[in-house]
């Protein structure tokens, strides 16, 4: 009798010895902050020592009202939804198609494609953010390639005007055509365009056309300055493009892993019976991955809530608040300008609320799709 009780006791002790360390850490990192943000979002605590400092009290739902009436909040929420839409209508279908062609070995070097498409996921997001910010910036390679092309085109047209004539003794007609090519911004450099341009050209001395061409191109060729990340109405696009490229590889791996669980004999038998590749995809692979699609869509929403670093490094949420997402909006409220911790905590709790809706959704989906795949 005592022995069995001792055994039960040891069992209980062992259970808690093994569970408690993990559970305590988990409570500290996940549960406690949720409770804290709930309390603080209803209070007027705004930094400093929480106990023994400036007294603070509960003020009710004011901060939530403030968040919901802030247009920047809705804008951030909209940007989060854009990220979800890019995932659901971009990354998921692309990931699925890539996984399928790799799974069925319809492309050469399937291993190479799989390997390379996942690379963006293992590089630090900070590196990716800074790198793409530079690429889209006026000093980036994009600008250099475009400007080289523009200069090349400009020089060609200039060349066709000057042709074999001596640049220091061009006709009025040729000078006018050069000025036409330079456009209004070029003409604006002169007060007496024709005369001044002739002076300029003769200063090169006779017969020196390569240098003249170079000089005129430097002077007149239009310069293209990329403003993707600094213009309000387009700044979100490069970010979404980078996000599309970054995470497609992750969904590819998820779909591929689930495809590989499908009995290959079913696919082979269908092919032998004359089913076409698209039919195999439509009637065998797609239905058995419906659960994966639902999971991926839920993951996409969770992913948009957790993203922070990429936008933080690419634009910092700017220009203005144009590229802010919820996490950056919250960060700004807490750490930029005059800190507003109650407001930031209210935003945190709203994000947690969205997560809980997602979790409920997963549970419901699991009931519906459960058993089809693990």
């Amino acid at each position, binding site marked *: 009798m005592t022995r069995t009780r001792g055994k039960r006791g040891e069992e209980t002790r062992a259970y808690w010895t093994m569970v408690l360390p993990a559970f305590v850490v988990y409570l500290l990192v996940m549960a406690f902050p949720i409770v804290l943000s709930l309390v603080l979002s209803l209070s007027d605590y705004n930094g400093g020592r929480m106990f023994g400092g400036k007294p603070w009290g509960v003020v009710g739902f004011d901060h939530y009202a403030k968040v919901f009436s802030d247009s920047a909040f809705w804008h951030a929420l909209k940007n989060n939804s854009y990220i979800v839409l890019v995932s659901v209508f971009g990354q998921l279908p692309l990931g699925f198609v890539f996984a399928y062609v790799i799974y069925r070995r319809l492309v050469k070097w399937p291993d190479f494609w799989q390997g390379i498409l996942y690379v963006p996921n293992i590089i630090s997001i900070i590196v990716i953010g800074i790198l793409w910010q530079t690429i889209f910036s006026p000093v980036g390679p994009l600008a250099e390639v475009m400007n080289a092309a523009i200069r090349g085109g400009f020089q060609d047209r200039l060349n066709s005007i000057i042709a074999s004539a001596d640049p220091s003794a061009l006709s009025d007609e040729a000078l006018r055509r050069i000025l036409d090519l330079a456009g209004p911004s070029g003409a604006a450099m002169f007060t007496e365009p024709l005369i001044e341009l002739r002076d300029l050209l003769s200063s090169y001395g006779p017969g020196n056309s390569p240098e003249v061409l170079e000089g005129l191109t430097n002077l007149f060729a239009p310069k293209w300055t990329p403003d993707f990340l600094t213009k309000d109405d387009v700044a979100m696009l490069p970010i979404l493009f980078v996000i599309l490229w970054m995470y497609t590889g992750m969904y590819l791996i*998820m779909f591929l892993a689930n495809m590989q669980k499908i009995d290959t004999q079913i696919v082979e038998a269908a092919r032998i019976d004359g089913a076409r590749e698209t039919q195999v995809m439509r009637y065998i692979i797609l239905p058995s991955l419906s659960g994966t699609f639902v999971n991926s869509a839920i993951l996409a929403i969770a992913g948009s809530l957790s993203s922070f670093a990429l936008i933080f490094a690419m634009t910092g949420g700017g220009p203005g608040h144009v590229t802010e997402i919820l996490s950056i909006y919250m960060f700004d409220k807490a750490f930029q300008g005059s800190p507003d911790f109650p407001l930031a905590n209210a935003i945190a709790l709203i994000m947690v609320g969205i997560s809980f809706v997602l979790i409920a959704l997963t549970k419901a989906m699991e009931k519906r799709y459960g058993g089809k795949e693990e």
Partner: protein
Amino acid sequence: MIATPVNRRFSAERIASALAKGLAYAVMSLFALMTLYPIFWLFMNSFKPTREFQMSQLGFPKSPTLDNFVGAWNLGEFSKLIPNSLIYTAGATIGIVLLSVLAGFAFAKIKSRATAPIYGSFVIGILLTVQSLMIPLFLEVNLLGIYNTRIAVLLVYIGSGLPIGIYLSTEFIKAIPGSLIESARIDGASYLRIFRSIILPMTVPVATTLAILNITNVWNEFALINILVAKTELKSLPLGMFRFSGSLSSDYGKQFAALTIGMLPMLVFYVAFRKQITKGVAAGAVKG
């Protein structure tokens, strides 16, 4: 004559499949280019003096130099960042794996009424993003007096890695036959003894998956550590590299060298463990 419509359908089908294949190739190539070219470009420019970069960003460096690397290394204090990143990654990974396998064993093999609610709370945590809790976490570590400490960073990293870790290890240990444990119990072995000599060796596959998953996550993590530490002595690589996007961003040579230094370890890790990383991601994401 009868065969014609079939043939036509067949050929339309073939055109469609050729188109699909072409599209797959095109987009995959675009994505691959978007990956390879920036890395190549970054690498090339990190060997150019900033003056040469301003003249020409494309192409190979004309007078390659290691000055950028030396400068970035000193300016970015990489000699502090790299050990810190190693400490955080190793500490968090060991912590997550150990705590997950321990709790997973209890959840899977010891009957208790506490399992349903506690294990359930961990599973819920898989979809809870810690990033949304960064402000309350910041206030909490201040309240606990552990702001600007390694303990806080490790605590947060371990806590946020536990849900998926516990889920994967519990499911894995459930599949270990119960008879193994029962016979050891009859022989008088304690649970902790069973854990050490039976469970731990058998969970190597899931522990490896978890470790790999967490190494990439923790090494690259930015949002959380950004609010947990402010001292350079405690910063990790991503935090250090972020400095090069702000006040130091116009010194392109050093910026590129810093990004190259920061990127290389993970690229090497990926090339070495690609199969395991892929497997880990698939395992971690299937349910997540």
